[in-house]
């Protein structure tokens, strides 16, 4: 018997779009387990389609969801009748796809505990951009498109746009119409949005004369309708029904009344609930199995529910492989079977709540669009929407709404209200009536801007590791964090980021394994941050950047300079350029007051100091540091050619000159009145002392001055200068 770990199925990456569907959804499990799977961790966009009633229940129960609608989008689906019940998952990558179809809901029990049946098909496109299973993928995309037509609120519209975007970028996944669908190597996707599953299954059986029909299901019609239907359709076939005592609602009473009841088999497991669903047939010349979300009920097979299954043709289908000594099926008399007192999933019959938010979405950072409904018959005197984090007792902001009973409202939310929001934000509406105040259940606000994860180069995993290894791509990675988690997370990340130190002397820098540190659990009598987050100080990005730069100057670059190991030159340059680039990129960006985040004097001072550390060092009354180049010259005195070769190879001095030029460009003020010396007329005349020291170092190290081309090349490698600035810089290189 074969078992597969559902939580490890999503392992390929990077992925462009992940489309998931489920009836029940457990956000806590999803965020802690599945969202950490590589396919989802690196996904550009993630959508979870789930049943509307179950979604409403999540809202009422205030389940733990830290990242709902900020890292992944949840779309409630409301079928015309029945429930949204599929468990079809699709991962789209630039070079292929992965499709998982089975009976597992995206819950802890569905993915780790129940007895669930699953099919998973992966495909990597060949050189011609195709694969024999590709039509399956197209069918799956079409399923999601059709399902989204029954989606509620802005989430459905966003998801539709995302699928359209994916189809543009990856034309091979464009959905096909049903008429053109083929049997893909004996495997087909079947769903009720194409019509009743029963009809599709009968079509697959075709003219064959089944000798055996096998059903595995936890739920059955209370009147045994589907069982009768099979017996009537194929009266000569034996029907085997596999169910589990105490968990399956097998209609024992109805079966006893049947003239020719099916053979009942008990699935024996001491600790796992049977939740798998399959319908198989076998004849002398063929066979097949339908596996997926459909219970053996009329609601599932006649298309009231939205269901999705994979149909596997005869060659690969063999129901017997599901059972052996580890998991047994044992024949049991109908009258001995103890059924469960449960019913199949069906829509809630509860009336609509007095107040409800269908959708709340935040666009452009501050524009909140609400779709809401007031079902209460009471006279509403005032209506307002409130925003809070799940940890907050009281709303951090309330905004008055027009007292319409239904419809759409677009309101502005103050920037300050949202500045410290990392994960999920909740919105609820409250109404003042003649009889008091009523409130809706809170819903998770859709942060549309944060939902798309745009890695700067390849996957998120690579970017993060790459940044921490080399510093390359740091501003872009910070942009990703700010989009997905907010400014506070950027500050936190910068405060903790240490780019790797390496100079060839073995191992990486850092703490030793054995640590002897004291702790102090003392806490002053002040509320924790979560108590009232709105009062938290605004994260200070500017200080975080300076702190990051100074930390790396001290613990990395000065350390290189003291050691003077030629093997560390590449790492030195990585950190040097990362720091210069971070300072410059954030100098070009403005804060809420229209001021550059990084102020010019701060940038110029730091860049000049870094150049000194890279070259001849610092020797002032209050600071001393060897220069990296000077240390190299001392250490390699016997063979400076090695220094020259390595420096040339890495364009070391080209980078120094480029960094100095950037500082000069910022320093230059055509209107400046000189305090001493002649008036500076162009950027290259600025920072004269630094220029002289740099050139002196080059001479002392017997190195060749970098060519204009080398300096331009180094400037280009920063990937941060506009064309105008680049041109201006080139004009300054003599």
């Amino acid at each position: 018997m074969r078992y597969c770990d559902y939580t490890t199925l999503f392992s390929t990456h990077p992925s462009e779009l992940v489309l998931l569907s489920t009836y029940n959804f457990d956000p806590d499990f999803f965020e802690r387990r599945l969202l950490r799977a590589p396919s989802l961790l690196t996904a550009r966009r993630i959508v979870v389609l789930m049943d509307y009633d179950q979604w409403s229940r999540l809202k009422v129960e205030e389940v733990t969801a830290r990242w709902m609608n900020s890292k992944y989008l949840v779309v409630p689906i409301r079928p015309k009748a029945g429930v949204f019940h599929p468990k079809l998952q699709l991962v789209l990558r630039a070079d292929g796809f992965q499709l998982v179809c089975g009976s597992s809901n995206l819950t802890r029990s569905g993915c780790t505990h129940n007895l669930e049946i699953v099919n998973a098909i992966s495909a990597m496109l060949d050189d011609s951009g195709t694969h024999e299973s590709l039509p399956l993928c197209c069918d799956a995309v079409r399923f999601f498109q059709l399902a989204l037509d029954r989606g509620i609120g802005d989430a459905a519209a966003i998801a539709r746009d995302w699928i359209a975007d994916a189809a543009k970028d990856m034309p091979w996944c464009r959905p096909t119409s049903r008429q053109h669908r083929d049997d893909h190597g004996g495997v087909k996707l079947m769903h009720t949005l194409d019509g009743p599953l029963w009809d599709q299954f009968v079509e697959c059986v075709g003219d064959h004369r089944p000798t055996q029909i096998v059903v595995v299901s936890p739920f059955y019609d209370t009147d045994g309708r589907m069982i009768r239907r099979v017996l009537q359709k194929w009266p000569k076939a034996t029907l085997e029904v596999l169910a589990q005592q105490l968990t399956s609602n097998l209609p024992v009473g109805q079966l006893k009344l049947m003239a020719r009841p099916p053979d009942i088999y008990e699935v024996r497991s001491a600790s796992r609930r049977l939740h798998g669903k399959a319908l198989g047939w076998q004849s002398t010349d063929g066979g097949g199995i339908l596996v997926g979300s459909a219970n053996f009920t009329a609601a599932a097979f006649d298309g009231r529910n939205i269901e999705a299954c994979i149909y596997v043709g005869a060659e690969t289908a063999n129901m017997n492989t599901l059972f052996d000594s580890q998991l047994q099926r044992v024949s049991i008399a109908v009258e001995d079977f103890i059924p469960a007192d449960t019913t199949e999933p069906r829509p809630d019959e509860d009336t609509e709540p007095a107040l409800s938010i269908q959708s709340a979405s935040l666009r452009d950072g501050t524009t909140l669009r609400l779709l809401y409904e007031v079902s209460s018959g009471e006279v509403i005197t005032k209506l307002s929407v409130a925003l809070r984090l799940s940890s907050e007792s009281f709303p951090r902001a309330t905004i008055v709404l027009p007292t319409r009973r239904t419809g759409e409202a677009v309101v502005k939310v103050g920037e300050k209200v949202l500045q410290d929001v990392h994960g999920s934000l909740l919105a609820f509406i409250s109404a003042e009536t003649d009889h008091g105040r009523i409130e809706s259940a809170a819903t998770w606000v859709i942060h549309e801007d944060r939902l798309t994860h745009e890695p700067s180069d390849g996957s998120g995993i690579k970017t993060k590791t790459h940044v921490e290894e080399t510093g390359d791509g740091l501003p872009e990675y910070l942009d990703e964090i700010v989009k997905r988690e907010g400014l506070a997370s950027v500050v936190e990340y910068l405060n903790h980021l240490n780019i790797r130190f390496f100079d060839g002397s073995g191992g990486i820098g850092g703490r030793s394994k054995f640590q002897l540190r004291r702790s102090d659990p003392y806490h002053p009598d002040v509320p924790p941050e979560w108590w009232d987050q709105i009062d938290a100080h605004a994260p200070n990005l500017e200080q975080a950047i300076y702190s990051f730069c100074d930390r790396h100057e001290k613990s990395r670059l000065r350390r290189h300079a003291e050691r003077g190991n030629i093997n560390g030159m590449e790492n030195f340059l990585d950190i040097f350029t990362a720091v210069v680039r971070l300072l410059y990129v954030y100098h070009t960006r403005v804060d809420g007051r229209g001021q550059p985040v990084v102020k010019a004097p701060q940038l110029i001072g730091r860049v000049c100091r870094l150049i000194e550390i890279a070259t001849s060092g610092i020797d002032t009354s209050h600071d001393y540091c060897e220069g990296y180049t000077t240390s190299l010259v001392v250490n390699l005195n016997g063979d400076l050619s090695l220094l020259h070769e390595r420096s040339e190879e890495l364009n070391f001095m080209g980078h120094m000159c480029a960094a100095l030029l950037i500082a000069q460009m910022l320093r230059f003020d055509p209107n400046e009145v000189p305090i001493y010396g002649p008036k500076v007329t162009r950027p290259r005349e600025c920072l004269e002392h630094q220029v002289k020291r740099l050139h002196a170092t080059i001479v002392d190290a017997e190195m060749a001055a970098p060519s204009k081309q080398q300096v331009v090349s180094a400037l280009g490698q920063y990937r941060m200068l506009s064309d105008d600035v680049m041109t201006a810089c080139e004009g300054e290189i003599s």
Partner: protein
Amino acid sequence: MAKKDKSSPIILQWTKHVPTADVQDPLGTSLRGSTRIANRLLFCITSITPRARYFTFVPWCVYDYNKRERGTPHALGLRDAIVLREHALTLGCIAHHDGAACAGGALVGTREAIRWYGSHNGSEANLRRLRFAKNPAMNAYFNSLVNLGVFITEEDIPELEDDEEPIELTFDDIELSAMGLEIAAAYDAAVGRLQAVSEVASRSRRCAVTTLKAWGRKGGLCELALPTSPDRDLLRDIFFTRRELPGKAHADRRRTLLLMLDLARRLTTNGWSFDAVTFADSVYFGEVSDEDENHAVAISSPLTDISLRWRMFYFHYYMAVALEGIFSWLVTRLRGAGLAGESLDGLVSDLNGLGVRRDISLFAGVHLEEPFGLISPRRLFALLGTPLELIDYDTSATIDGSRRVSGPISEPILEGVIRNDDYQDPTSAFAASLLLLAITLARYKRWDATQYGQWLASAAADPYLDLVPPVVLHGMERRFQNWWDTPFVELGMFVLHRFVIQQHQAMSYEKVASGARCLLQIDGDRVLSTGTYDKIGTGNARFPSALQVLIDLGLLSRDDSNDIVVTEDGDLFLSQEMATEATE
């Protein structure tokens, strides 16, 4: 690197099962609540560090190792050298007490040492070959010693200059601080001249039991309390923070120990015993009770603040008992239901059963005329003579004043019902737990906006995962406009779902990535259990250790009835320290 797809299709397979592993602290209320709060109040005295003498013995081991052994050809590693000396101490204490352990227990390796002593009476011990305990005392006491400042730590080492290589420290490199040396020297004054000490450090590692006996007499655990012990006063200075220690939390330990001494004196003077129960009742209710009478306990003015912080601890304690009580009931109940599980609606609706109504009527001493689940806390307390429409600062104080320790549904009474299964209908455990939660939160409400409430709230680093009374109270207030007037079935549904099932599932991922430490599964509307849990773990684990430390320091002792009494020395010491507190 992107991971490419090389997998073959998975056709028709069962999903894999994540089996359930052992579960402790199922809601995280101990490790992420009680332990954090108690760590602030009794910093450096943990549940596994009850014997004060180890606080001088372990540093002395480092001192003695450096003095007699380090650098010799037969020198062991420091860790092994400490363990070797620990064996000598254990055996010495057993020998001194003629084959019994020291009074107060917690002599590490006692059982094996007694066995060895019994079979080798009078013979020579080859300490290199003895192994009395899997986990030496040093492991338990080391962190506390570090936090007390006994060793030189990274904070004490000047920051590295840029040209200095970071030093890779090992355990063998640890060094005693000035205070550590002082402590070690004090213990050395007791045992340093003993023959056994030299023998332990010798190449042979052999000691006659008679020489070890002298070690037990001079340097044993219970012998610290003697006035002649050279390290006793020094340890008093340290535990009571009478000298400068690194960190601010030591001040709260001092005040906690003073509070214990003060309460011990007040209670025993009036004929009451001093133990964990009377301590809890004193700080929580300001009174103690027995079957016959209630006795008001005044808290000395300088100790009011620390007493209130302990009160916060017990708010958490009772909340945790309530939630674990619900968890324990749920798991037991679901175990009976097997794989079929139960629906939440079904579970909660059982609160309306006749058996529950009878049981609660009995606990509360009132006749409930309607099912328990349908009445609200407001209604129940109105029946009990405390009619309050809602719970706010003022009404919380009213509850506090009216529901005393010996009242019919006071927290200790309900705790007893839950822990002892003292009911007829099993669902009454759920009902009693809900009642306990309601009374605890109602009583806590008045403190919520105060500095003490904020201090308690700060024990929750993450309100998603850390359940402390402010988190639960705010959750209830958010969920229900007036939770006090919400029927118990509705409260039960919310608490069961959010603070028990969801919390337990979330905790399982905090413990292991696979989430295996989880006893509850939800499948659709069914909840099922995959294991057993019948012991409510919540407690005040540090209190017995603190009590033993005070005994070891000679400030408390046990009388012939094994009751705690304040020693003469303790009385004098307390008076001096209270005078100091009053002037600060």
